[in-house]
């Protein structure tokens, strides 16, 4: 079980880019245990790129991402696997395996990383699907699920090994407002109920105001963070007018 309070993720002097081009320079921020943390910014500001560096898909040009004090970028072999087990990821496209049913998708990490019996694995996978309201769709293939259901199945798969952090890349992308609101409610409940820490990249300001405790706003012109704080506070008091405008325009 997890403790409360304290920093769970620490980004220190992180510089990221491609082919010598720096996208974000010397980023510093922390994500606290149990909070829903959102990364905001205009298109092309490097939000998804930052997320990919935080989950270790890309190597930074400089700096480090510490997850529970361990640097993912420098870790290899079992140490890397141990850090990877601390978080789950929901990708923008859900990234469910098309040839596997929803249940098989959720069971996959259990099959690969545990020696549990078949009954145990099915029970756990079904309980995660029940948590996201998909227990009656367990035997369906991803192609038979709607976009919102695929996202929820993706969340079930991401939390099946009880990670303490869940990274979400554009969780509301392509969803209608009602389904998106349902997903927000699920995030809120998982954060509260499992004391999970959420890091999400999103454009949906309605989602941010519904679930996020704290946000950072990225600006490609300064290649860094221009605002950090609770979204409702930044909407009224951000130093940069464009950040206030950005948050007000969509929130209205």
């Amino acid at each position: 079980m997890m403790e409360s309070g304290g920093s769970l993720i620490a980004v220190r002097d992180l510089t990221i880019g491609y082919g010598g081009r720096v996208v974000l320079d010397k980023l510093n921020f922390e994500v606290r245990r149990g909070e829903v943390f959102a990364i905001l910014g205009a298109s092309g500001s490097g939000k998804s790129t930052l997320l990919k560096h935080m989950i270790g898909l890309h190597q930074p040009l400089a700096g480090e991402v510490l997850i529970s004090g361990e640097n993912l970028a420098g870790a290899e072999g079992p140490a890397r696997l141990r850090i990877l087990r601390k978080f789950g990821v929901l990708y923008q496209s859900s990234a469910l395996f098309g040839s596997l049913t929803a249940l098989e998708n959720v069971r996959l990490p259990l099959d690969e990383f545990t020696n549990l019996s078949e009954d145990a694995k099915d029970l756990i996978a079904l309980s995660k699907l029940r948590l996201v309201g998909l227990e009656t769709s367990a035997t369906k293939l991803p192609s038979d699920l709607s976009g919102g259901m695929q996202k929820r199945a993706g969340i079930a798969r991401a939390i099946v090994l009880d990670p303490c952090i869940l990274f979400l890349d554009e969780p509301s992308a392509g969803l209608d407002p009602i389904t998106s609101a349902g997903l927000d409610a699920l995030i809120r409940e998982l954060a509260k109920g499992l004391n999970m820490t959420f890091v999400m990249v999103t454009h949906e300001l309605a989602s941010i105001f519904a679930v996020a405790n704290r946000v950072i706003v990225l600006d490609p012109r300064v290649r860094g963070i221009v605002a950090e704080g609770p979204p409702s506070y930044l909407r009224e008091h951000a130093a940069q007018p464009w950040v206030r405008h950005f948050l007000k325009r969509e929130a209205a």
Partner: protein
Amino acid sequence: MFFVPVFIFSRYGEHSQTKGDPIPMGLPGEAAWMAAHPAQSPRRGCLMPSNEAAGLSVRWDVLKAEGAALLTLHGGLDAVSTPVAWEALEKELKPGGFTSLEIDASDLAYCDSAGLALLYYLYAGRMTPGATVRMSGLTSELQNLSGSFSIADLTALRGHHPPRRSFPEELGAATAAWFHDLREQVEFIGEVAVDLAGSIFRPRRMRWGEVFRVFETAGVNALPIVSLITLLVGMVISFESAQPLAQLGAQVYVANLLGLVMTRELGPVMAAIMLAGRSGSAFAAELGTMKVNEELNALHTMGLSPVQFLVVQRVMAGVLLTPVLTLYAMFAGLVGGVPVLLGLGFPLKMVLQQIQSAVHYGDLAEGLCKSMVFGLVVSSVSCLRGLQTGVGPQAVGESTTRSVVSSILLIILSDAVIASVTYTLRQ
């Protein structure tokens, strides 16, 4: 700590919280149980040093008396320790024939989803069929989380059998699908041939830049592999035919055989097969990806025909390209066979004379005409397979495979038809 209510989402994403059925608590504790069951068997459990040495965090005791059992859990149940405990407890409890099982989890310091699954499984009586099971000592957070587990879901899963068709139904459906597919292929080739003919009469409608791009990527870049394969094929044919013909004292006719086989048959067929494997698959993958990316839908909604816009150029390139590749394949095959004949002691002049006497312009024309048919068939079917791409990550791969298989099948089929017709005409 844990507190997870069960969510129920409607299909529209509406969401309401309802409690599941958490495991109810209610057990007086070990002392009371022991007082109630004075005739106990010796304490059994896994207070085993081997488990501690293996770093397992869980320990348990099983007390048994008069068909009743008390299971006390200590330490932590996680993804590592749970499988061991699960297996051991199943062996311990299942054959016991217990009428009641009482589980004391008050000493359990840690429990993740795997551990909770074990507790729920025990509580649901899956290890003690028919027994009354009671549990105590579970924290309220874990108790609430247990509401997300459901034996009914597991039973429904085990009872789920996807609908299966009988063998005759499968066979019938597969045959019908095969004929339907063949009809689609023939129709598509016909449609493309008509569009192609139309483009010849109205050449300005054709996007010649695209034709030349395909011509270059599918043709020029294919020359090295065509050279290597046909050179070796020519060499192999010469070697393989030299021995039997030597037994008849007709070894010099190896040159005639080589010339005829390469011009009439192997030149066109090998070039077409390489076109299918190298370029046809690329056509299918390219169009398949365009379909997945909805580029084809964009063409439809702009009022453009994907056949006119994408397919005709590729087929035109294929039809123009295959005779050139075939001519090159014929030449490379002869180049591969001639050194073998020189090695057998025949002078070059004699070999060339033999080839010249055996191969007529008609044979060359037959080979080239055949190759144009192959070009039409391979390019059209490959494009069709690309346009037929379905959904899902494996769809483009499937289209590519189907394009190669269908192309080779149609090459051989059309080759057989052409061979029968030309044989009849020669009579």
